[in-house]
């Protein structure tokens, strides 16, 4: 079970850029690639907590602005040879261009959101 939340429109995010969704459990960064794919990650680099939303986006990667760790947008994994992982969320673009962010049930339980 995934709960989907409307968060805005594809056009609200610049290409090769990101916007932030604020939540009670921290910020989520919503990225838009050159090919209009949209990905969502916790806005915290696993290295030292840098805000990934502020990084430069290239391909399906964002470079953290603090110490240049490279994070894969599709799964939150840090690119080798560095290690680490940041949480990723499902996100959908529906035909109208509206963006839906998914909060998996299991994740809600972990966060004790009911």
């Amino acid at each position, binding site marked *: 079970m995934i709960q989907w939340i409307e968060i805005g429109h594809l056009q*609200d995010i610049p290409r090769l850029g990101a916007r932030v969704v*604020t939540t009670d459990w921290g910020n989520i960064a919503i990225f838009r690639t050159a090919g209009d794919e949209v990905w969502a990650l916790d806005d915290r680099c696993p290295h030292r907590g840098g805000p990934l939303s502020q990084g430069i986006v290239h391909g399906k990667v964002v470079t953290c602005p*603090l110490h240049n760790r490279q994070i894969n947008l599709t799964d939150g994994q840090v690119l080798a040879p560095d290690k680490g992982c940041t949480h990723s969320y499902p996100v959908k673009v529906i035909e109208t261009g509206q963006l*839906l962010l998914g909060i998996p049930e299991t994740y809600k339980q972990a966060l004790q959101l009911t």
Partner: protein
Amino acid sequence: MKEKLVCIGNGMAGVRTLEELLKLDPEKYDITVLGTELYGNYNRILLSPVLAGEKNIDDIILNSQEWYDQNGITLYTGHTVTQINRIKREITSDQDVTIKYDRLLIATGSNPFIIPIPGHNLPGVVSFRDITDVEAMLAASRHGQYAVVIGGGLLGLEAANGLMKQGMDVTVVHLLDTLMERQLDKPAATLLKTSLEQRGIKFLMEAQTAEIIGTEQVTAVRFKDGLEIPANIVVMAVGIRPNTTLAKAAGIYCERGIIVNDTMQTYDPRIYAVGECVQHRGQAYGLVAPLYEQAKVCANHLADMGIARYSGSVVSTRLKVTGIELFSAGDFLGNGKTEEIIFQDPAQGIYKKLVVHNNYIKGAVMYGDTVDSAWYLQLMREQADIGHIRDKLLFGQAYALGSALGGTAASAVTLMSDDTQICGCNGVCKGTIVKTITNEGLTTLEQVRLHTKASASCGSCSHLVEQILAITVKDYHNTAPKKKAMCHCTELSHDEVQTAIKQQHLTSIAQIFDQLAWKNPDGCQVCRPALNYYLLAHFPAEVKDDYQSRFINERVHANIQKDGTYSVVPRMWGGLTNPQELRAIANVVEKFNIPTVKMTGGQRIDLLGVKKTDLPAVWADLNQAGLVSGYAYGKAVRTVKTCVGSEWCRFGTQPAMELGVKLEKMTWGSWTPHKFKMAVSGCPRNCAEVTIKDFGVIGVEAGWEIHVGGNGGIKVRVTDLLCKVTTPEEVLEYCGAFMQLYRENARYLERTAPWIERVGLDYVKQQLVADNDNRQSLFRRFLESQHFAQAEDPWIARALGGLDAHEFKPLKQVTTSEIKVVALPEEEVA
């Protein structure tokens, strides 16, 4: 059934032994670790930089809880083992945990020795041993003014330096007349004392502490001769005692430390001991290198290999006080049978001494120049015969072996031992670099940085890393590309790309990618900011700034800080301000709860800790008072530092402030390959320090001297004198022309200092001084480009004009209570 190994002590020696053991045989034991401290295993020797504010606790953790979990090690923090029962083979902790063992490792370290004088129990009297001590010292530095450090040894001096860095008034009290007498001889100790005194530390030599005074808290220290000095904190750093209490109580034979043999076993062969708590062949060690050697041997024996033996260590010391180069090793005092080779230059603060016996180095002391210390240590450890190079020995390795090895600098790294630290920022040793190069098949500096982090922070050790590559990779110099590609998206170098942009008149990043066959469709974080700069520098009238290719600082016109907040630096023309501006700044700080207000080195005010969402509102308020962006975030013109000039100064020959303001008004907003700093001094006393700026002007009776290419950062470089001119107008013309030459010619991220080293001062002089037409046309191009660069203050555009509004607003704010569920028929999902 696995055997059970219990390690008493969660410090550097014990855990290092376990690390070595896991490398040899990860499956052999069920391992349990007990430690008194509440922290995981951390690097005790880095407590000094933590105290000095150069590192924080997280930086010095060696093994996190994760590491213990991954390796199946049970960890009890906050547990002190109170009993070893050798009959039942079990240990008990102060919290009544009892654990059985097949083999036991004692790594209880040592305790700081506290002089039992009256008052030694008072709050405010600490040792310098663990994180708790450092926290106590940091707390004291926030509330008190006076610190007294008892003990002028290695630890005492590091504590003193740290407390001084935290702003305290520090006095070091030493019983003898020589500081660090266990590591230094008199001449070296004298140089050290002088240099610490220059930093502001006071010394009381040959002083005996009689009493620590205070009722609730320490307030003063009294000496035998009746002298009394105030103290809010007293640090006892007079020595350490091996912690043998537990071993003694269990009937294990101890003298000063727990006695071990060459396989690190105590008198009970099931029980091993390593680290500061042991005594081996009459020696107890308090330094980290021997502990690591012991750990290796102990692990080897625990893994039933039984081939390693420990035969003692040649110890060496360095003082971890930034900026003080000091090294000592072995028998540095010598005796009647030894000879001394000495090099001394007190004026330069350099002193080097080697103690030699029958052409073998027995000991060394070096102060002020320790470049070759690793080499001397190696010659000592290997007991190498130095007879054939005795006369050249003190002039260093490169010179002494020059003839033998062709005198290449690479020979220096060849002879470094594997545990020589190459990269100070990230703590990477030569051995690690060599091993990674070999195992991963690395061939470039870039790859080594990625895999080991060596030279990936400040870059000042890059040349050493390159040399290690050269000696490790076969044919490195033949395989190494003669030119350096800009990044991994292209084979082309910065220069080739710039030439292509100019010759093919390329005006967008997409065009560059297309024409120059870029390998990645979006480029990367390295090439995109560079290309965006080149385009703007060459075709300012035609090129549209590519916003998403700028680093975040330039994208939002503020500096990102470690916690994701931003800092804001308004421009203060020539370092001048007025009540209206100061009031506006004060009001903004209060209104937006800005936590830190700091003076920068460039004569302006930095507001640190501003939330990104507040930036436009902060700018709007500052703009009201006429304040604009200081571009402190940009590869751009930063600031023009000035002295008070002939406007106020008794000695001033020229109006420095007036010219500084003019320069800044002319050049603000200009994007440059790297940050660009200026200064104007009104007389040769040079109070504005123009000789370490990218462009500096010094007023003299007859006009102005123009200096270029200085740098005060990683590698200090003093400016070159470009020329002398007579009028302020000429200064402005030279400044604009010099900047334009740099803007069009240098590589992105190349400061003027390395740029001038690369192209040569003669080239710059020939372009600007010898060729009037060329200078004027450069100046014209600079002013044309400024026409676009100064179109609008970026803060006004964003604060009042609403530019890039999306950058400062969240896309959406979701609260858990109001999550709106969207019913979503499956077929609608794209």
